[in-house]
């Protein structure tokens, strides 16, 4: 898979600076309410970017604008060098991204395996069923679900499992870029940590670029390379957590230096000390597979 991603990189002419998502002057308004104004954002290839912001600052709206579900009032959005404003992007670009919505957004009338197969069928209608089943099982296992869950329906799954199944579907076409909308919200702390590890492992293995909207400080500390802070209708700061903490912005200070921020920082440091070595993919699968089964 990694080689495939490599292949894509060489095949398409793209800006040399390796920016996967480029947002310029984005403006979103709903009636009189202005959500974004003159918002700029660059996401680099291969990074895990966390997007944070208070409730109602338009994190989800930003994601929806990037993937073409929300028509911005003004501004430019490019993904892989192609304009996506108003859902104008080509199938070629859609094939290279995967999206995990907040509650998984699985198709409720289809089983988990069928859900994973939907994007594959859409782009490769000629594949035979046996191969589709194999791919689906592989993706389901890679997302940390037990293989027997592939025949289950979304209503039979727990919230955490639904998110994993949604991730399996987002990964179905071996994307280069995945969008995650609050992947750890509503998960128990163990499940959330396992999910974080899973995402990091997948990034390391597949060279994914990851765009995460999150409220979870642990996620930010544990896996994000850079964090973009949305406040005052734009991205007020973007950088590593250390860089952000050094900034003198009231919301950022409150966010990272509040009691929860400190606790998350400490636990991240502890985890760092405990496991200096990176998790091997087998470990990650074991870890992620076990918590739901218990």
């Amino acid at each position, binding site marked *: 898979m990694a080689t495939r991603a490599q292949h894509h990189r060489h095949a398409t002419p793209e800006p040399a600076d390796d920016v996967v998502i480029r947002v310029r002057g984005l403006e979103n308004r709903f009636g009189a309410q202005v959500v974004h104004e003159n918002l700029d954002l660059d996401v680099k290839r291969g990074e895990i970017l966390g997007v944070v912001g208070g409730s109602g600052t338009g994190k989800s709206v930003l994601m929806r604008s990037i993937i*073409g579900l929300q028509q911005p009032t003004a501004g430019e959005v490019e993904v892989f060098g192609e304009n996506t404003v108003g859902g104008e992007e080509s199938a070629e670009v*859609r094939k290279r991204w995967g999206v995990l919505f907040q*509650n998984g*957004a699985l198709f409720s009338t289809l089983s988990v395996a069928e859900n994973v197969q939907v994007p594959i069928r*859409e*782009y490769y209608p000629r594949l035979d069923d046996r191969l589709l089943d194999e791919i689906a099982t592989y993706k389901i296992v890679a997302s940390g679900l037990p293989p027997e869950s592939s025949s289950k329906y979304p209503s039979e799954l727990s919230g955490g499992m639904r998110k994993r199944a949604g991730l399996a579907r987002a990964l179905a076409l071996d994307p280069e870029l995945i969008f995650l909308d609050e992947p750890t919200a509503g998960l128990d702390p163990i499940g959330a940590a396992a999910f974080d590890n899973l995402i990091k492992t997948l990034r390391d293995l597949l060279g994914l670029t990851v765009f995460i909207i999150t409220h979870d400080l642990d996620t930010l500390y544990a896996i994000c390379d850079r964090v973009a802070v949305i406040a005052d209708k734009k991205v007020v700061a973007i950088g590593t957590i250390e860089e952000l903490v050094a900034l003198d912005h009231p919301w950022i200070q409150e966010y990272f230096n509040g009691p929860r921020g400190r606790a998350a920082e400490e636990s991240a440091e502890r985890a760092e000390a405990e496991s200096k070595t990176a998790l091997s993919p087998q470990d990650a699968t074991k870890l992620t597979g076990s918590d739901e089964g218990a």
Partner: protein
Amino acid sequence: MSFLIGIVIAQQGAIQLRQFGAEVYTINLVGRLTFRELGVLMTAIMVAGRSGSAFAAQIGSMKLAEEVDAMRTIGLAPMEALVLPRVIAAILMMPCLAFYAAMMALIGGGLFSWLSLNLPPVTFVARIREVVPMTDVYQGLIKAPVFGLIIAMAGCFQGMQVEGNAEAVGLRTTSAVVQSIFLVIVLDAFFAVFFASIGWI
């Protein structure tokens, strides 16, 4: 349902017609009314209540769960995957159901005539074949797919309009049913005028 309606029409018709000593015309009443109007209208109302509301609720809850958005990001067009199959199904099934409903109403009317007016079924069927022109049957069968289209479109449209919370699903489902029944009846009136003007009386 239609069976009962058939009985009611026959019974009420018989009571009124008895005043003129024209009870035998009950058969005309039941036969013509069911094929032209009642079969298809009753079916449309039932389908609107059952399928139109289901369409709105299904698509609405899919919208709430972001399933519709997920389809768009995958590149599936919700129109093709969600709306089109439902519209086609409604268009195809409405004529069958309308015809079935008309037959059931006839049987109800026939049964009543037999038991209470002493008209044997053979006479009833023979009279029906005499007094109901084929154009009556055509009228029902022409209207049925159009009503199916309207019901499915109203249901799917309302479903797609759902936004926000679960309450919206309920509201949209209600308006899907109200809207489609209203549109069906208005259109039925136009059809009546139209068929009269082309001489299918």
